[in-house]
């Protein structure tokens, strides 16, 4: 992916740049809002990673609003030190697609970057999701693996759906918390792990090829290959 990073802190920018580069992405960097807006408007990017508080007279919110007003639909991930619930809402309202609070784990950033960048541009009206022999029917809300029906609770269904939609991508605990539960606080206990392990019991137990894998220090990934 070709990614534009607009971040005024040199240390953080270097770190993000290096990490994304190692993950196989091309990164352009702008250190202030004006340059960032100029680059974003004049060149083609798959994703923008924006700080909110930027020098140069154009902050992150203004930058996105300007782009959106020019019908530029490039996905935007905010990377901000402003952590309030209101701040998050402001970011998403202005046209951001995701919001990550500093300090952050690089794995978290990478997972979100990949989830945003590989998002299908047109929502294909798929009615069935399939990973290996696991099948999820969105209409009848049925889950089968190898032809055998698996009973799941409504919330487990949504959890599974999210993992399957992002099959092959790392999904972090925070992402699951936000996307599956719509919770924006930090549960002190490892609640997400317990939910995933229950789901795993239902999906993987009794089958020789596990589909839900734990990624150390990051989260989970659903894929057929070990």
């Amino acid at each position, binding site marked *: 992916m070709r990614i534009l990073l607009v971040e005024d802190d040199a240390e953080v920018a270097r770190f993000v740049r290096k990490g994304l580069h190692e993950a196989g992405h091309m990164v352009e960097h702008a250190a202030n809002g004006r340059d960032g807006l100029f680059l974003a408007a004049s060149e083609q990017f798959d994703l923008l990673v924006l700080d909110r508080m930027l020098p140069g007279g154009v902050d992150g919110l203004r930058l996105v609003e300007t782009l959106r007003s020019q019908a530029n639909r490039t996905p935007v991930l905010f990377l901000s*030190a402003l952590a*309030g619930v209101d701040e998050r809402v402001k970011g998403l309202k202005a046209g951001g697609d995701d919001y990550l609070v500093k300090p952050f784990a690089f794995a978290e950033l990478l997972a979100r970057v990949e989830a945003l960048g590989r998002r299908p541009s047109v929502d294909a009206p798929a009615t069935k999701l399939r990973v290996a022999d696991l099948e999820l029917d969105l209409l009848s809300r049925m889950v089968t693996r190898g032809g055998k029906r698996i009973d799941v609770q409504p919330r487990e269904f949504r959890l599974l759906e999210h993992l399957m939609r992002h099959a092959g991508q790392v999904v972090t605990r925070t992402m699951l918390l936000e996307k599956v539960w719509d919770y924006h606080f*930090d549960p002190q206990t490892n609640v997400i792990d317990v939910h995933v392990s229950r789901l795993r019991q239902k999906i993987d137990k009794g089958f020789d090829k596990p589909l839900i894998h734990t990624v150390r220090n990051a989260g989970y990934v659903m894929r057929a290959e070990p």
Partner: protein
Amino acid sequence: MVTQAGERPPRLLSSAGFRFAVLFAAMFSVAAVAMVAVLWWATAIALDRQTDAAIRADAIALTERWRESGATGLAESIDDRITVDVENEVIYLLREVQENAPPRRLAGNLESWPEDTPADGAWFRTRAKHDDIISQMRLHRLDLPGLQLLIGRDEDQRVELRRLLTEGVLYASSAVVLFALAGAWLIRRALQRRLGPAFETTIAIAAGDLGHRVPLSGRDDEFDRLAQTLNTMLDRVATLMEGVRGVSDAIAHDLRTPIARARAKLEDALASAPPARTEEGAALRGAVEQGIADLDNIARIFQALLRIAEAEAGARRAAFAGFDLVPVLADAAEFYAVVAESRNQVLETDLPEHLPMVGDRDLLLQAVANLLDNAIKFTPAEGNIRLAAVQDDTGLCISVTDDGPGMPADDRDHAGERFFRADKARATPGSGLGLSLVQAMAHLHGGELVLADAVPGREPPGLRAELRLPRP
């Protein structure tokens, strides 16, 4: 608990306006009573004294006359006096008393000697007939050797005058009471009207809206002075709050950015550290990972503090909206039920169909999550946790009950303080901010957090945390 004092005007008896008014009415009445008393003394009493003085003068003059010219002269003098009195006011009766004979009338206009006449020298009042009319009279008895004399004045006119006076005083008193009450009511109303804007302003301020100021009447009186002082104070508070907000934003940026930087460096170091296979590599990786975990913890505590501060400042009141509490609670229970289950605990819920409430959904959810998280942490395996919600006349009550060790009464008072951790809780992970946030959230909604034994008397008693929120 945050009681919303001042939203309603105070009850009548506790109202300062009412007390001022009563004081006013009392002062007014006392003044009126004093005036009436003076009036009474100056008229009715003075008239009596005049009468007595006249009688006394008569007595002296007639005694003198008797000394000069005996009983005959005295009788003449009495007749003269009766003749010149055109108003029929004077009353005399002179009789001669001799032993072994009935008294003989010598002069006077009193028809007969009153039967209730007291001894010599007495002053008295009676009703008797004189000049063919029965009337009220004031009499003085004076005995001379061989003679008995009654000197008096007809009081009928005075009695009438006194009656009129009494009537007048009564009417005037009623008017006084009416005026006092009206004045009191006016004072009370004026006080309330002048204090009303200050009330409204302070209520709005207490609700978190710092934009209000007390309007001035322009009269530059005591109330305006008070309003000006209040406004100056509010300006100062607003400046301070602005400063605090600025500081929060600055902290957000100036602290989170260096933490982010440090975390980035540590992650970088981890990537280039020797592999974990070697002893040296494992030790280094362990240390770096611990450093990262510590930094994350700092960020987490700091985030919790900012949220508590935000809730306490009332800044989030703007985000209040109406929602149904039941799905939110059911969701939270479902979210934590699996954790309880994984620890062999049972999390039950007891929720009604609907519970409409107005508030901050996110904050309420986090508060309930904190309570459930605590309950799960402190309840032993096989224990029960119960999330319930009820609504009654006073408002909502969300309760989380557990089978844990409970909390000593001394600790309960401090449980809402930041970073407070009960002795029993020191061994468990946590920052000591969970209940602070719950309490701040409760206060933001005008409610309170109440901690109690789940089952008083049982050992261990368990903890019951109640979030009591007033009716929206």
